[in-house]
């Protein structure tokens, strides 16, 4: 059972970067005005940022990380670990982490690799980087998470296009012997692999010039091809309503805590209806549950750190906090972490000029 503590590691800083172009869902004319209004209200996304073709997740993560390293005044030669968590890497191969190691002028002694996860990516990523650093050999590490989802959604898919936004984030992790441990509860259910999927382009379904690119009508208002993100809304919804609350509660219970001990709950920004339902299930006050959905959309693996940067900026900089972060979705993969922060370096969000 993946409920465990990781000691000796501390978050030194968090930063985020979004592409410059904004898309306003009020302009989404694939659906009627009435449907548009309902859609915006239910998913909670008014605007989001769209990368231009040619901008990659690593470009966004680079800006976030490069600036963060400078803000922290870190010696780059001391950064020995770079973990890139994304499902929109630069190339099919090589891994993107190496490209970032080079671009960020990190030493060749740096461990760098990719982890392919989305919604649960930040929490999983913290557990991986934390576990690797906890033994004490690596003093400084970077967790870079993000996705460019908008280029993979079909404009004519009302269940996906209005939802996603693009972003890249960087979290600086340092070894700290008196740090309060991070406490994790991580889970998986591969039976739900097709709840959120891009069907073609991998080894299972090779690119087929005859069929992969054809747009098909899936249902009313949903037209997409096999390279587009396909979401089974009800399946994902039922999964989230079934699994997130017990995962969070189990974690709290395991370490003798209650929701009263947590200052803020930062959930993966799936959509407003789903997130609000989870909030109500857990009986959490709205003031404790920040959202970045309305301005940035569902930013996949970036959503948790992005929400901290945009919504909790001054509190993470100026106080000691107990946070519970919870990511859930594609995989199906989900996980929560309880961590304590103190005076994190947290610059305002960066804009990438595409």
């Amino acid at each position: 059972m993946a409920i465990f503590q990781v000691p000796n590691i501390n978050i030194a800083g968090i930063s985020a970067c979004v592409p410059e172009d904004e898309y306003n869902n009020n302009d989404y004319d694939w659906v009627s005005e009435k449907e548009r209004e309902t859609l915006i209200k239910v998913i909670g996304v008014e605007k989001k940022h769209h990368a231009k073709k040619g901008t990659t997740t690593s470009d966004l993560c680079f800006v976030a990380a490069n600036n963060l390293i400078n803000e922290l005044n870190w010696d780059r030669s001391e950064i020995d670990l770079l973990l890139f968590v994304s499902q929109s890497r630069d190339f099919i191969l090589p891994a993107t982490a190496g490209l970032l190691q080079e671009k960020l002028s990190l030493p060749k002694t740096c461990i760098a690799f990719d982890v392919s996860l989305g919604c649960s990516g930040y929490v999983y990523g913290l557990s991986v980087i934390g576990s690797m650093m906890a033994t004490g050999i690596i003093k400084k590490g970077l967790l870079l998470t993000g996705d460019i989802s908008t280029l993979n959604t079909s404009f004519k898919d009302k269940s996906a296009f209005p939802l996603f936004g693009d972003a890249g984030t960087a979290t600086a992790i340092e070894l700290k012997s008196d740090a309060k441990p991070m406490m994790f509860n991580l889970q998986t259910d591969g039976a739900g692999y097709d709840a959120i999927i891009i069907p073609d382009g991998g080894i299972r379904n090779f690119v087929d010039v005859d069929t992969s690119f054809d747009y098909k009508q899936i249902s009313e208002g949903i037209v997409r091809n096999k390279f587009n993100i396909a979401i089974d809304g009800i399946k994902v919804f039922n999964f989230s309503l079934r699994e997130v609350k017990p995962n969070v509660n189990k974690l709290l219970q395991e370490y003798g805590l209650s929701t009263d001990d947590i200052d803020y709950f930062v959930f993966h920004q799936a959509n407003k209806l789903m997130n609000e339902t989870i909030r109500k299930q857990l009986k959490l006050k709205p003031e404790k549950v920040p959202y970045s959905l309305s301005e940035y959309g569902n930013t996949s693996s970036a959503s948790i750190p992005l929400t901290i940067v945009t919504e909790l900026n001054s509190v993470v900089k100026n106080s000691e906090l107990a946070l519970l972060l919870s990511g859930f979705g594609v995989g199906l993969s989900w996980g929560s972490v309880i961590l304590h922060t103190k005076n994190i370096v947290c610059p305002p969000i960066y804009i990438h000029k595409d």
Partner: protein
Amino acid sequence: MEINIFIKKIEEEFEDIQPNTLVPTDVLSEKFTWDSINALIFLAHVNVEYDVEITAEELIKSKTVQDLYDLVESKEL
């Protein structure tokens, strides 16, 4: 849980429905735009109110308000 309370809560949840207009024999597709968004709102509602999980297939099989009520009731047991 009584059907009247069930109906009242549904009317509160869905802004398009005027209060005190739904009756058990009402056909859902005539009263709601019964699309995926409303389906999700309904799923969320029964989950939070009654701690009950409903699948898409079960929802599709429900034709009237009474059917929905019976479905939720059957899960509560």
